[in-house]
């Protein structure tokens, strides 16, 4: 049985950071790296309450520092130049520390790279018509083949999503109920090996401790989906710069997550190639004049192209202007492709009966005008353009939907989801191990 040593270490750091009061959150995205610092205020002096952070206890928190910078060395969510990423993290952390006037040691990261795979596992055990105890759950968890999954790849999330007892299903806490067959669904998200190690190394070079790593489609759904959507089931589409993340929620649990390796960067490079302009200029006209629905007026609206380097070969002397309809006709096919990909991957999940409820678009790409109309054609009228919730103290500039991941991280930290490593190990310990555990207990508490 894999013992999730690394993940337990992360949890310990996170709890100690919350106890200390300050925690840094970093979103390592393809277009930008965002860092916010949140400060927790103690509601209760009773320190027992802080230990029980996994149970639905919420602590008052407030954003005290925030900084965002364009990322260098990240392509499609993957770190390709570690040193550049390190430098950018250093800058972002430095600026937000200056704003907060305090330093951070523990950092929680959200990340969309590593070609994650979401898998649902099911295991069950027989009980002898007795009430379910936490020990039974531990034994059940020990039966999962985590070892096999963690050999080729690395486990990022392992969330228990659904308990079932005999023919009852949809239980959140089966302890105390009497039954014969206890089953548990686990949503396992694995990423490529050494992804966590790489990020940890980057942060260690910045004198920061990694206190947890979260998958960004899951996190941005937490900030964009409202309570009813989480309960009844909804799909959140996080349209990022490098990748587009999909996460399906049902009954407050994420049942599926996926990544499409298309994003805003593809649209920008399409524009760059179509009009022979620089990448930054293409990005500029995409964000300022981009759209998805052509109207008659758009033929007359001319967009002036400015060239950063006038002597370059791709300078087009004859056409310094393009019309907006031309721009839209470049953007729209790529967007349609992305939507088709989303549709395809949703079909592939086999969760249509869950995900048919609602589709919420968030992330920077969702700000494209006309997305609602276009997406409605694909998915029917169940589409909503989501904006992230409010977090206390967050600057106005960071409240757009492109920051839904980092805001979701702040919300998630406040109310942590139980993962497999939060449960106890089965205590079938021999006499020698008992002494060892006692020594460990002393070590932990003093």
């Amino acid at each position, binding site marked *: 049985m894999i013992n999730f040593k690394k993940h337990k270490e992360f949890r310990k750091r996170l709890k100690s950071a919350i106890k200390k009061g300050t925690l840094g959150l970093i979103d390592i995205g393809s277009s930008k790296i965002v860092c916010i610092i949140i400060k927790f205020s103690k509601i209760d002096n009773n320190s027992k309450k802080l230990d029980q952070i996994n149970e639905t206890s919420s602590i008052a928190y407030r954003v005290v520092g925030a900084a965002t910078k*364009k990322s*260098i060395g990240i392509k499609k969510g993957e770190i390709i130049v570690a040193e550049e990423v390190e*430098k*950018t993290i250093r800058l972002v952390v430095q600026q937000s520390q200056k704003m907060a006037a305090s330093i951070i040691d523990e950092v929680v990261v959200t990340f969309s790279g590593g070609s994650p795979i979401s898998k649902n596992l099911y295991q069950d055990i027989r009980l002898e018509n007795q009430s379910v105890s936490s020990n039974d759950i531990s034994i059940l968890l020990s039966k999962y083949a985590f070892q096999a999954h963690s050999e080729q790849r690395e486990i990022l999330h392992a969330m228990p999503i659904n308990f079932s007892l005999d023919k009852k299903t949809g239980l959140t806490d089966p302890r105390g109920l009497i039954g014969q067959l206890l089953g548990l669904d686990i949503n396992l998200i694995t990423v490529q090996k050494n992804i966590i190690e790489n990020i940890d190394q980057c942060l260690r070079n910045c004198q920061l401790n990694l206190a947890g790593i979260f998958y960004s489609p899951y996190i941005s759904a937490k900030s964009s989906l409202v309570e009813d959507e989480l309960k009844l089931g909804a799909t959140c589409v996080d349209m990022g710069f490098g990748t587009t993340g999909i996460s399906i929620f049902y009954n407050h649990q994420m049942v599926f997550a996926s990544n499409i390796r298309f994003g805003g960067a593809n649209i920008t490079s399409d524009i760059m190639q179509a009009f022979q302009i620089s*990448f930054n200029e293409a*990005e500029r006209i995409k964000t300022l004049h981009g759209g998805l629905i052509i109207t008659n007026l758009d033929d007359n609206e001319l967009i002036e192209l400015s060239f950063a380097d006038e002597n370059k070969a791709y300078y087009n002397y004859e056409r310094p202007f393009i019309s907006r309809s031309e721009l839209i006709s470049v953007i729209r096919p790529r967007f349609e492709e992305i939507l088709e990909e989303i549709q395809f991957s949703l079909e592939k999940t086999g969760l249509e009966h869950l995900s048919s409820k609602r589709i919420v678009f968030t992330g920077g790409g969702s700000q494209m005008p006309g997305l609602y109309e276009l997406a409605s054609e694909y998915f029917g009228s169940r589409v909503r353009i989501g904006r992230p919730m409010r977090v206390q103290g967050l600057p106005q500039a960071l409240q757009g939907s492109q920051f839904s991941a980092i805001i979701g991280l702040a919300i998630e930290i406040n109310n942590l989801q139980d993962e497999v490593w939060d449960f106890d190990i089965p205590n079938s310990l021999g006499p020698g191990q008992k002494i060892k555990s006692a020594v460990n207990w002393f070590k932990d508490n003093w």
Partner: protein
Amino acid sequence: MKQTKSYPRPSKIRYRLERVWLRLWLRKLILYLSLILVFSTFCLLIFVYSNDWIRLKEYKNFFNNYIFERPELSVSKLEIKTTNLDLINQINAILKLSFPINSIMLDINHIQKIINQIDSVESSNVRINDSGVLLVEVIERKPVAVYRENDDLALIDLKGYKINNIFSRNDRKDLPLIVGTGGNYQVKEALEIYQLLSIYLNEIRGLIRIGERRWDIIFKNNKRIKLSEKYPKRSLRNFLSSDKSYLISSNDFVIIDLRFTNKIILRKLTEDIIKP
């Protein structure tokens, strides 16, 4: 990558230094250390120069010259605004000031207190005016009566304060005489009784307070009028305005007793009484 143009970002050393500098305890430590350093150097300097006391004295003289002995602050003379020469001499003798003097050294409240302690002064006002003169304005007590107690004759004012002693009654014949314990506390009443008897003023020797409760009027021919305890003025006024007022000038009676409201008791001095 084409799109990722680099921009300035902090180096590792600078990042670490800033993180160190953001630690609050370190800032406090540096602050306290610098304070201690400044203080200790100050102490050290004093210690080094403390053997050279003469130099310190020079400094002290210099500061004295510089701060205290300025013409703006010096007081040149004392001016006492009163006509009583004795009082002027008395105040001069008490204060013992030698001019010029520094106004910072003068405690005006203390001077006023001292002057107010003089018997003949009712109140005073002490200040230093613009031209460097210490002004003392004195309101004297006015003697209104002569008070005899245990063979001492003293002048008293309306409130009964003793102003000063006199040697003989003849010195202040113009003032009425009050005798008896507690008489000095009822000076106002005594004066009002005198006023009622203004016709007989030359014949009166004085008023006696008896038992600290009532007045007796003594005439020169040893005649005596006993006034009532509660309403001495009213009984006297009634008596004077009545047809029996001639009794004062007659020599037949020694004591006229007005102590009772509805009757006058007369006492005759006869041979029988003197010689039993």
